[in-house]
């Protein structure tokens, strides 16, 4: 079995590292627009790893590069820009597909290829990173432990103080705090303003922390694959508070309209979108000196990425709640690890269903404990809190 990874960035690189560890695979090809990047990653991964140069914006070259592989893992963002380029090529070449899409509109678009994937006889698992991805898996596991799950609240905190690296991260952030974004409320998908819906939840390592509605795929995919839900939300925030999405740079700039990608402004003869400006400007702001009130020592030892998934429902007619927490040193671990794990489920025949699905649809086909064990080995700390409420003396 052969796998190809698109994007030799931090996450693609980690996913490749995971894939070469699977004995189902004989080849793991790392493809990037920059051949040198791909080569450097491949050289660290032993004889199973190969590399090639691919520009996903060149359809013919993309198709040809996927030919003959059993699964493609797409790690090239930002997804709202290029979501369906790779799935189209995968359908044409009948190659199974996994991606780490984290934009809500991209997820909608990808789901629209369901019939074409079925016809092509391929399995396409989208949004298979950490958030979304690992969180969707937690949601499905929690829901499977209840007779009826009704509400799933997903939330995540990213330690933004060392947010360096790919500019796609900034484009993604600008996108999820921009304008109206979908949440699944009262049994239907509705659009709400980004950064509304503030809640304070308890998180591991940092305690109570605010989170806001952001534009993510969880509310888009989860209600399709877990039946009977009345509510699915996604909230996020940056850590520490100096990086709060709403109350610091990103939020202020978003309120001023700098996240917009739909208009172009003439700046001394150059036509640029406010979002292009924002994404060039944010790295400068974030790398400049921090405000005094912020103590760096507080975050040095903090997990880089923290998630919480609350599943609420009923068991034997009594209210039940299951909460999943996770922390990890770097998002790449939970994101790259999950995408590789899902790709493995496809190549080893565990996940047989054809069509486009979120990772929550894989839970029935996977050994949950094996997944937990795998993620734990990679340094993701996960815990499950089960809460039930019953009336004493009333037989259930």
């Amino acid at each position: 079995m052969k796998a190809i990874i698109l994007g030799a960035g931090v996450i693609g690189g980690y996913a490749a590292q995971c894939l070469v560890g699977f004995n189902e695979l004989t080849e793991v090809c790392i493809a990037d627009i920059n051949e040198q990047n791909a080569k450097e990653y491949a050289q660290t991964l032993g004889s199973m790893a190969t590399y090639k140069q691919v520009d996903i914006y060149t359809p013919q070259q993309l198709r040809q590069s996927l030919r003959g592989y059993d699964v493609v893992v797409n790690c090239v963002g930002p997804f709202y820009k290029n979501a369906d380029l790779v799935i189209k090529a995968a359908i044409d070449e009948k190659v199974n597909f996994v991606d780490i899409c984290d934009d809500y509109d991209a997820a909608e678009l990808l789901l629209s290829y369901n019939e074409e994937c079925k016809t092509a006889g391929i399995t396409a698992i989208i949004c298979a990173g950490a958030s979304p991805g690992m969180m969707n898996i937690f949601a499905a596991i929690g829901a499977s432990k209840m007779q009826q799950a009704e509400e799933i609240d997903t939330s995540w905190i990213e330690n933004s103080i060392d947010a360096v690296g790919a500019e796609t991260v900034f484009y993604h952030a600008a996108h999820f705090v921009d304008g109206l974004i979908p949440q699944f409320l009262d049994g239907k998908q509705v659009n709400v303003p980004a950064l509304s819906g503030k809640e304070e939840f308890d998180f591991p390592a940092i305690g109570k922390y605010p989170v806001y509605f952001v534009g993510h795929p969880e509310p888009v995919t989860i209600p399709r694959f877990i039946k009977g839900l009345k509510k699915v939300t996604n909230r996020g925030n940056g850590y520490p508070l100096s990086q709060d999405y709403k109350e610091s740079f990103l939020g202020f700039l978003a309120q001023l309209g700098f996240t917009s990608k739909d208009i172009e402004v003439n700046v001394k003869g150059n036509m640029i979108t406010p979002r292009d400006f924002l994404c060039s400007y944010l790295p400068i702001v974030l790398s400049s000196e921090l405000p005094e009130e912020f103590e760096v020592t507080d975050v040095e030892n903090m997990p880089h990425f923290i998630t919480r998934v609350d599943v609420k429902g009923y068991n034997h007619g009594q209210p039940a709640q299951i909460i999943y927490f996770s922390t990890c040193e770097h998002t790449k671990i939970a994101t790259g690890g999950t995408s590789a794990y899902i790709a493995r489920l496809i190549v080893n025949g565990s996940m047989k269903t054809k069509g486009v699905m979120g990772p929550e649809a894989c839970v029935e086909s996977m050994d949950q404990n094996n997944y937990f064990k795998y993620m734990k080995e990679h340094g993701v700390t996960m815990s499950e809190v089960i809460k039930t409420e019953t009336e004493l003396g009333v037989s259930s």
Partner: protein
Amino acid sequence: MRYMVLGSGEVGSVVAKDLGSINETTQVCVADINLEAAQKLSQQIGSKADACRIDIYEKDGLLNSIKGYDVVVNTVGPFYKTGTIVLKACIDAKVNYVDIADDSAAVKELLKFEKACENAGITAIISHGVSPGVTNMLGLLGATKMDEVDEINTSWVESSLGSAIGPANIWHGLEMGSGMIPQFLDGKLVDVPAISEAESLKFREPLGEYPVYYVGHGEPVSLPKYIKGLKKVTNKGNLWPDVMDFNILTVYDKIGLAGTDTLKVGEVELCKRDIAAYSLLDIIDSLGETIAKEFENVEDIGFQVRVDVKGKIKGHPAHFVYTCFTDMNQSTGLSASYGAQSIASGKVNAKGLFAPEGCQDPNAFFQHLANKGFTIYETKTVESILKNQKELLAATI
């Protein structure tokens, strides 16, 4: 079955009426220092009931009156004064005994009679009310569902609306809310300042979050005797609404008027605690109308109980929270009545003196209360680190 209920007050009435309603009961004698009150209550109960006058401070009269009954239920407080008097008489008369002793001083004293009760061949159950009583049983219930139990924290909030407050209530408040009181911390009973360690806990609606403080109650004294391995047992309480917050009691402690020693005022020798009680009563009376008006349309919070049990299940941290919202007199009376019935019916047949958690079966007890319409909620939280099969817990809950 023949029962004697000492005290025809609010709790005594519930006990007597409940016992009078059971088929197995042949006689309920209501005894009070005020014969008229006892007679009035016995008439309400009907043909199984009669009444007599007992002054528990008249030793011989008390002893003669209780002879021949299956169980005496003592509802006459304050228990640090009355508990041992009635218990001693029951030992002498060889009559089983149940009380609703709540303050820590009383529970400590009563527990000294374990051997005497055993030798007399009687069963005595103390603290068979709500707090302590139901709280102790909830601690036991949680403990039986865990593999290891570390902490049992009991707490309560009582509404002061609609109940007449007299000097005796304030005396009782100062007894448990002043000076040093016992809590079971780090595996041993230690004295801590009363009304310390304020903590805001979530109770059932309509109360919600409310502050509670360490008070001198029986739970930290008795629970560690019966449930092994406990590191912490506490009791915290408070009054509602917040104008009645227990914090006011600390003022009397600070100015030295909470004690029971005397102070000479001119030619008159007065008990310091009486001075405190009457001055506080004066404040409460002056506030009475304002409070009544302010809370005219506010739902009464009743009596709120919360018990937190912390321990481990299969090595995983577990936290069970029991909450209920009830009428204090009603639930205290029903609990005490069950205590008396369980002795008379032989459900509890061990001889000696126990707190309820030392002799009652929690499931039978809570089933009985549920049948009486007393709703207690159990919220179980178990945390597990996700690693492998044996650590997944969903199947066990």
